[in-house]
């Protein structure tokens, strides 16, 4: 039986990840558990060093966990061999990075098609490609190399690359971090649209409340642990969400005994 049929797109169970620097051990994730339902847009927030990016990398199978497990569409990534995990990631997970990470020697279209070109079982769906390019407004830029594109255009190419295989899950690591506010908001609108109109499941790491406001749920991390979770619908606008977020992450006042 296909485990993906009824399983949530993402299940994170008691995830632990430690980094060692010589004699020093840093606990990046400490028992993080999370379930993301199909079509849900989750924003992971937290201060620098809280474990946001580590969580995303472990979920993507780029970094192995020390403990716990990650189920994507019901498949345990840690149980797969590297080769199969890579193929699974290629077909089921789309990744968007802060620094775009396009191949400078390839054109925009070639960059979009990169995951398909790397997989013998995937063929180019020209109709889907044209729709993606048109939807992202890249029709006139498809033959340009990254150095001829603006930051916003580069990130849209990166989103197209993440969507070209029609993945179950989109993981975005601070995708607006290198963009101005206008381009950032436009990008969030596109992701939100994918979520609403196509039922795409998205997990986005950010420290910006204005970006998190586009999500349906916010997960707040602190020191490698889930500190809080809340629905964005509870707040009227980004400012209210920001205020709530700051209330959560603000250190508790020290009281005298």
């Amino acid at each position, binding site marked *: 039986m296909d485990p993906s049929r009824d399983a949530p797109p993402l299940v994170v169970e008691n995830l632990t990840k430690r980094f060692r620097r010589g004699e020093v051990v840093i606990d990046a994730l400490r028992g993080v558990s999370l379930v993301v339902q199909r079509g849900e847009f989750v924003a992971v927030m937290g201060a620098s060093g809280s474990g946001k990016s580590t969580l995303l990398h472990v979920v993507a199978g780029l970094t192995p966990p020390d403990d716990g497990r990650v189920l994507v569409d019901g498949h345990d990534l840690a149980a797969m061999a590297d080769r199969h995990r*890579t193929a699974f990631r290629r*077909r089921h997970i789309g990744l968007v*990075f802060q620094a775009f990470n396009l191949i400078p*020697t390839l054109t925009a279209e*070639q960059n979009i098609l*990169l995951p398909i070109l*790397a997989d013998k079982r995937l063929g180019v769906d020209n109709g889907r490609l044209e729709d993606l390019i048109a939807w992202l407004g890249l029709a006139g830029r498809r033959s340009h190399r990254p150095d001829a594109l603006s930051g916003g255009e580069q990130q849209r190419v990166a989103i197209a690359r993440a969507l070209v295989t029609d993945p179950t899950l989109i993981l975005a690591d601070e995708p607006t971090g290198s963009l101005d506010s206008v381009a950032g908001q436009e990008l969030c609108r596109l992701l939100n649209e994918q979520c609403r109109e196509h039922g795409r499941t998205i997990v986005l790491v950010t420290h910006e409340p204005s970006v998190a406001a586009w999500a349906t749920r916010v997960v707040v991390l602190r020191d490698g642990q889930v500190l809080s979770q809340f629905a964005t619908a509870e707040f009227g606008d980004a400012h209210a969400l920001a205020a709530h977020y700051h209330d959560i992450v603000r250190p508790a006042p020290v009281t005298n005994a």
Partner: protein
Amino acid sequence: MRVVSRLVLANLRQHPARMALTSLAVIAAACVVIWVVSGYDALLAQFDAFADEYLGRYQLAVVPEGPEQPSGMGQPAGRPIPPEVVHLLQQDPDVAAVDPLVQSPTKKVTRVGPPHEPGESKRAVAAGPNPKRRGPPKDGSSRGGRPGGTKRPGMAPPTSGASSASGAARPFSWPRPTLVGTGAQEPPHEMVQGTWLKSAAPDRPEGVLSDGAAEQINADVGDEVLIETERGEFRLTIVGIVRQASLGGGGPRGPAPSRGPAANAMYVSVALAEKITGEPAKINCINVALTDGVDAESFRRRWNERFRREGFAAAVLDPGDVKEDMEQGFSATRVRNQSYAATGISLLAALFIILTTLGMGVDERIRQLAMLRAVGLTRGQVAAMIAVEALVITRVSPLEAMAPRATTQATRHLTAAALLGLTLIAVNPLLVFVVPMADESRYGIYAALGCTSMAVGFVLLAPLAILLTERLFAPLLAVVLRLDRRLLGTQLGGNLWRTVGTTVALSLGLGLFVAMQTWGYSMLEPFVPGDWAPDVLVCFPYGGLPEGELDDVARIEGVAAERCLPLAVEQPKLAEDITGSRERQTIARQDNVVMVGFDPERALGGADPMLDAVFVEGNREDAIERLRAATAGPVHDCRRRLAARLALDDEVLRAAAAERPFGGPGFRLARGCSPRLRPG
């Protein structure tokens, strides 16, 4: 592979100059290998072709067994083959033809013109050009830049390899044609002109030349030639020319086997050969043709065994022996060693070029490679990308892609690598100086194991050496170059493997340069003439300067007549291996010696001797006295040092002289007469 090839091509297009330069460097290295190795292959191919054609219509040759004869000169053997061998061979049903040869050296062979040409004196014709021809003088010599032999003052001295009168470049020395007495009814090789010998009678002086000899003396069918031997001069008419195998394109150039039929021949009847040499015929080679279907190899084995069993000092040669004989020659060995060395050096250089270039490419794209892994490329695809890139650029090795970047934590590993490197470096001196083994094995193991371990050892040592150098000198260098020290660190230690590659490549180049300079100086220094040498040495190849013409040379403008000393130079092959040349052939260890004859009084005597040598042992007077008595001679100190077995009063040349065709006494090192080059 489509994504791999697309990424590789895109990256190569991005760095066209790097791609072009690296490819060019590797192509150049490959060209060096191909050039040198193809030279050796071509030489071997020539040997193959030559060996197949060398015996002409015969399959085998019987030669005297014993000390080797003078190499490459087509000279006859000194020890004759007993006539019984001919009779025994003739009785063998496997033999179709047996043709014994009587081979004798000549002093000089000169074309003297068409027969019965009136009005020409012998000398004038011998030295003069043939008005019908263009080309070198008819005796094959350039006569000191005196085309036509016209005596005139102010003639220029000849130089080695100088152009002949025709302007064609010629080698320094050609072997004189060998007189070959034969009773063969058919020519041993294909006739290219004229006919084979018709008469065995000595009163019909006719001869047939090999094409090489004909080219050498510029003779045609119908021409009359003058043969000069120890006994005197003799004229005969050329009736034919045969095409005889030779190396180097048809002339009497290049190497020849040390035994067997002469490659550069003047064929005459046996009776005529006896008349010319004034000696009874002594068979020193027998050409053997086999009947159809007889296996030459089994025949050779059978007869060699029989010769040994019955005590005949003879051996049967086949084309394979001829080829082997030539391959053992010095030049073939040298070319082979050169090809091995060039191959190794070029491969090493190419490898460092590849690693350095790959290292640059990988370091620059480390983030990009990580992203490719993230978007779905497997480890294998990324590795394949690097490998394909390497293959496209250079056709080798993704090692650098996997090489770890050096960090402070890696210092321990580098230290371990350095210790391992030092251990490997120590292997070489241990192999050379400590481990007991035969010299031949030591040389092979040194080359294969010692040099390899030393090279790997230095490569392993390099990273730590770079880090230590950086730590010690980077602050100073940063001040001198006005650079930030940390920036400098990122370019050296931060890109450690690139720095190591560059360092090793530079070290290799520097090492090669130093080695070549040291080798060149150390090898040439003993041969560079010092103050003791005369101002000018004039060479008269191809027969030397005729007696009586020395005065003409002395009268040349600029020559001090009283300071003009004739020298007689011969280079015989030594019968005894006094320099160990058979154990290991090098320039310094040779199987021959240059003998220089001179008037001892004029050369060494007086207050201002012509050859102002320093005697490191003994004294000048004793040397002159014993040279005058022709019983002993001084030896160069370099030669004496190289041949450690030589000691004063050793009879070093007796055995060699006994094998020389002209005979003569053995030579003894005069006590205390060992001249040495004067320093500076």
